[in-house]
């Protein structure tokens, strides 16, 4: 059985794919170019710009800083966000409606405003160390994602399951870890990945909070581009893409990607 597909539909689909994949191909090409400036198609093939990333001390340092901040802020957001999402769902009837909106607020406020107010209030007012301000800022940035994603998987959770466990002699807190968490595991993993990627990619908040000696990778990429227009930035981008693909592949192998679509 064959079905004829309208040529316009085929053309549109191809265009969309070019639009989605094209930039990635260009970045990959530019990263492999042997020239000392960004160009596409690549002229000559070389891995020296990848090498260059690790030769520049600022890149090495900011990659580590970015990973540290992403892990810490995602961790904090999970520690705060999972119980928050639990409470918002479990006690939805008893709690006022605006409370759940409160946890979405950081997404609604323009990130630049968020970054500026963090700078003014946390960094300047309390003289918090740069690293601490960055971690706090990123925690705030990714918290809404955690709360939303966990809430979505809790919406399908039947809380009488929790009551069944309690009635069988399991204390409330223990029930949370042994019964509730295993059942929203995919939600927690999805939230972790989303939050982690959001933190790694963030520019607008970090740009306010980074300072002498401490920077994040995206800020370093910007700084580097301002001074050198060489393919190093393309190489870094390819590395980041590779990291994302690796994470996704790991998730696909262990859980299947379908839970992102839920």
């Amino acid at each position, binding site marked *: 059985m064959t079905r004829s597909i309208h040529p316009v539909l085929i053309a549109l689909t191809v265009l969309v794919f070019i639009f989605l994949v094209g930039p990635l191909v260009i970045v990959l090409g530019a990263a492999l170019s042997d020239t000392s400036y960004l160009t596409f198609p690549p002229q000559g093939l070389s891995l020296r710009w990848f090498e260059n990333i690790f030769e520049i001390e600022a890149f090495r340092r900011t990659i580590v800083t970015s990973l540290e901040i992403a892990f810490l802020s995602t961790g904090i957001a999970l520690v705060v966000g999972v119980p928050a999402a639990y409470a918002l769902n479990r006690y939805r009837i008893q709690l006022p409606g605006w409370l759940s909106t409160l946890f979405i607020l950081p997404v609604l406020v323009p990130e630049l405003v968020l970054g500026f107010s963090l700078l003014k209030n946390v960094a300047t007012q309390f003289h918090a160390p740069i690293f601490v301000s960055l971690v706090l800022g990123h925690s705030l940035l990714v918290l809404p994602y955690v709360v939303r994603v966990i809430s979505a998987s809790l919406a399908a959770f*039947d809380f*009488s399951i929790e009551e069944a466990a309690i*009635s069988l*002699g399991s204390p409330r807190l223990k029930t949370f870890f042994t019964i509730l968490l295993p059942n929203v595991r995919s939600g927690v993993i999805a939230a972790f990945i989303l939050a982690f990627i959001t933190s790694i990619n963030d520019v607008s908040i970090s740009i306010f909070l980074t300072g002498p000696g401490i920077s994040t990778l995206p800020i370093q990429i910007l700084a580097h581009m301002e001074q050198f227009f060489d393919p190093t930035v393309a190489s870094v981008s390819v590395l980041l893409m590779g990291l994302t693909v690796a994470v996704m592949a790991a998730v696909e192998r262990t859980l299947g990607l379908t839970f992102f679509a839920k």
Partner: protein
Amino acid sequence: MTQALSIQSITAHYGTTKVLEDLSLEVAEGELVSLLGASGCGKTTTLRLVAGFLEPTSGKIELGGKDLTRLPAHQRNIGLVFQNYALFPHLSVADNVGFGLKQRGISGDAKTKRVNAMLERVGLAPFGDRLPGALSGGQKQRVALARALVIEPPLLMFDEPLSNLDAKLRVDMRVEIRQLQRANGTTSVYVTHDQEEAFSISDRVAIMHAGRIMQLDTPETLYQRPANAFVARFVGFENLIPMTVVARGGAGVTAEAAGGVRLTLSQDQFGAIPDAFTLACRADGLAVTTSADGIPATLGLRTYLGRAYQYQCDTPAGHLTANGPLTRPLEIGAAAKLVPVPEQCTILAPE
């Protein structure tokens, strides 16, 4: 093992709304008492108070003489069976059943033995390794039952356990539940909105309305001798006719209803009749006749019930529902007499 439950003058609120008012209930050892009523009557609230998921505003709950009122839910040792089964989706059937034993520090062979014995009893021995998702509704409810019973609780509570099953399975399962409950002699509280289910399974039934128990009695008494108008309506007395006694004579008591309708009722058949009362009649309890003395009626809509025809009747005493024989269907607008059949009628004292 099994213990008596005593609920003493419980009042409960949701926020500022009062959902239970001064409710008391005694369930004897080994007895199964149903809480029956429409949604919002307080039956599930009562169950959740006993389970410890809600706290009463005032009153006391005792199990086997021990005060439970302020005890945390997980220390109450009460078996619960939920409407939506509430199985742990990430645990196998055997682990679901063994969950309560694990909490009690029972593990290894002792646990496996008890879990297997319980699965055997509910007919699920070959299903121990499956996940709950792979079971049918009836099987899930059996697992839930096994999970609640295996901890040998002094009290077992059911919250609409059969509502999600189809009609045939519902009847099979309630027989099974009753047999297991009797065999174990476990004191039980059973919440349902289904009258047939409650009556068939219970030693006694508490009919609830607006946070109070309207009547607590055996199913037979509730069905034949309701104590008040609410329970009478609930158990199917369609016609409630307020009456006043006008004469007491040898043959019986003559009483008058609205519109000057007079009926003579035999004290032998109806028992003591107070001066003012309500005559409660099922549709079967008002025979549609053309000859005898009775309530004069104009017949309205006729519906076919299979065993009888049912008529909506206009009478001087108000609108009444009565059943007539299949042999002689009567037409809309026909005049007839409605005669109370004592076996299907009862006298309600003024409230």
